[in-house]
């Protein structure tokens, strides 16, 4: 399946990927409004990790054998049959954070979606978009979406 890969040698560490991810997953989808009103409510699925000049964008690897799928007690975390992406159904999620604990990439974060106002938040490969927004908006093509 097509996955998102980071090319850390070209990552600027500007974090525009995080910004555009947040906007894409916000209610308003408007950059300024989303940042003003929904920051903290929406958790970006991509995080830029950095140590010195080494930086790269990290998001869910959509593992073939995903620990989060096995750890999920409600079945909220599931694999999309069409795309193969690992997705969290916020309505089913009860916020036990087992997925957060087991993710080897640290790519699942505590979000505020769902009925209870707490649900795991992670990359959903922009739910069916041709190209995820982090890839689309990286100014240096340091994030690529491809079959490997």
């Amino acid at each position, binding site marked *: 399946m097509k996955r998102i890969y980071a*090319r850390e*040698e*070209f*990552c*600027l*560490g*500007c*974090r*525009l990927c995080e*910004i*555009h991810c947040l906007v894409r997953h916000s209610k308003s989808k408007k*950059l*300024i409004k989303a*940042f*003003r009103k929904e920051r903290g409510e929406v958790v970006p699925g991509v995080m830029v990790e950095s140590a010195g*000049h080494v930086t790269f964008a990290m998001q869910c690897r959509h593992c073939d054998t995903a620990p989060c799928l096995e750890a999920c007690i409600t079945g909220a975390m599931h694999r999309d049959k069409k795309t193969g992406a690992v997705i969290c159904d916020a309505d089913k999620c009860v916020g036990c954070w087992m997925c957060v604990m087991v993710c080897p990439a640290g790519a699942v974060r505590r979000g505020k979606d769902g009925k209870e106002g707490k649900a795991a938040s992670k990359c959903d490969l922009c739910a069916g978009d041709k190209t995820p927004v982090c890839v689309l908006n990286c*100014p*240096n*093509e*340091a994030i690529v979406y491809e079959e490997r």
Partner: protein
Amino acid sequence: MRRWLVQPEFKVERDLERCIQCQVCVRQCANDVHSYDEEDEQVSSDGACCVGCHRCATLCPTGAISISRSQLEFKPNANWTPESIRNVYKQAEGGGVLLSAMGTDRPWRVYWDHLLLNASQVTNPSIDPLREPMELVTYLGRKPDQIRVERGPDGKVRLATEITPQLKLQTPIMFSAMSYGSISYNASQALARAAKAAGTFANTGEGGLHPDFRQYASNMIVQVASGRFGVDPDYLNVAAAVEIKIGQGAKPGIGGHLPGEKVDAAISRTRMIPQGSDAISPAPHHDIYSIEDLRQLIYAIKETTQHRKPVSVKIAAVHNVSAIASGAVRAGADIVAIDGLRGGTGAAPTTIRDNVGIPIELALAAVDSRLREEGIRNQASIVAAGSFRSAADVAKAIALGADAVYIGTSACVAMGCHLCQRCYTGKCNWGIATQDPFLTKRLNPDVATRRLTNLLRGWSLEIKEMLGMMGVNAIESLRGNREHLRAVGLSDREMVILGVKPAGE
């Protein structure tokens, strides 16, 4: 010492209605213009250190940043311009030589903007380059005085004249000499890759050839400059051609100085000098004090390369450029590259950059005329350099007598350069003229290569359009054909030197 008389050059303004405090600007500015106050949770900007490179404004996702010239105006004075006053302040405080980078920004006349191209009407039909083949292929190198053919034993006619080595260019545009050291690894790689992809040549500059770039060596011209950095027989033999650098348009008569801080392990290996040592190119070649000395070096290189590579001599356009070019041709140069007044650099004393040399247009016309008069024009190709901003500039240069042109500034601009002229600080926010690992990674060579090849492609298509409009189908038919040019707003004397007629004549 506090530089209290030198006021900021730029004013950085932040539209607070649009700013989302995302701190992209904070992370992108190498000059620390933007900062984030965690206590106030507020990004703020201090224009004092701004160089006007637009990195922050370009990456700002909401377009909240605007940069303008400082509004602090001096009392208007046609003689004492703000720049001249500021320069005196700077030197009064620092006592050193003022540095600049890129080509001169003084308003010296740009002759390209006073020359117009011809087009066909009625009696000499124009050609549609989208339907008819258009030839841009250019060969650089010594051409024979005459062509002799003979009939071989098999009865077939064959060329009896031995043709000396030639560089074959798919388009008459090459990348100027920019050394690895003055520009980053990624920028050097992009230039080499783009040259290979476009079927033209990139010039290593005087900094040697990094082992990684040997795979592109068939599309690289290697330079031998006064510092002789990275030069050995292997370096000369691996490349397509060798260029002896005598001078540079931005700083004729001045050497080079790559500070030791930029000489990291890779650059030290490539230049063959100790890590951390200053790379100093002397002003002259200390073994070249005459045309005869130049001839010795040219032939030493030709011998080393078994006469398989054309040898170029690059000179700066100075007052007696045509005599020097003639000497270089007689010394055995196969290509003479002339770098004009507006040519770029990574670092030069401002006063040299802005006041020394002559415009490339006049130098090119003078050299072409002189070599023709002396009957030696065929013995060397002429490559013009020094600020070609568009395909039209290139076409006009070809019409004035150039075989091809070198582009350096345009190539940098294609890679993202905003001409802030601070290459010498090593803090290039666009990742081009820097060795800082935080900054070099900002230039993805895949992206830069694509942008450079796009530029060459676009300009080549435009040159084809211009050829078609003039009713010729090969760049050869335009070369040195000054009948295709007319001058507007030039003096009689300037037109005599350029060899062009006034518009309307």
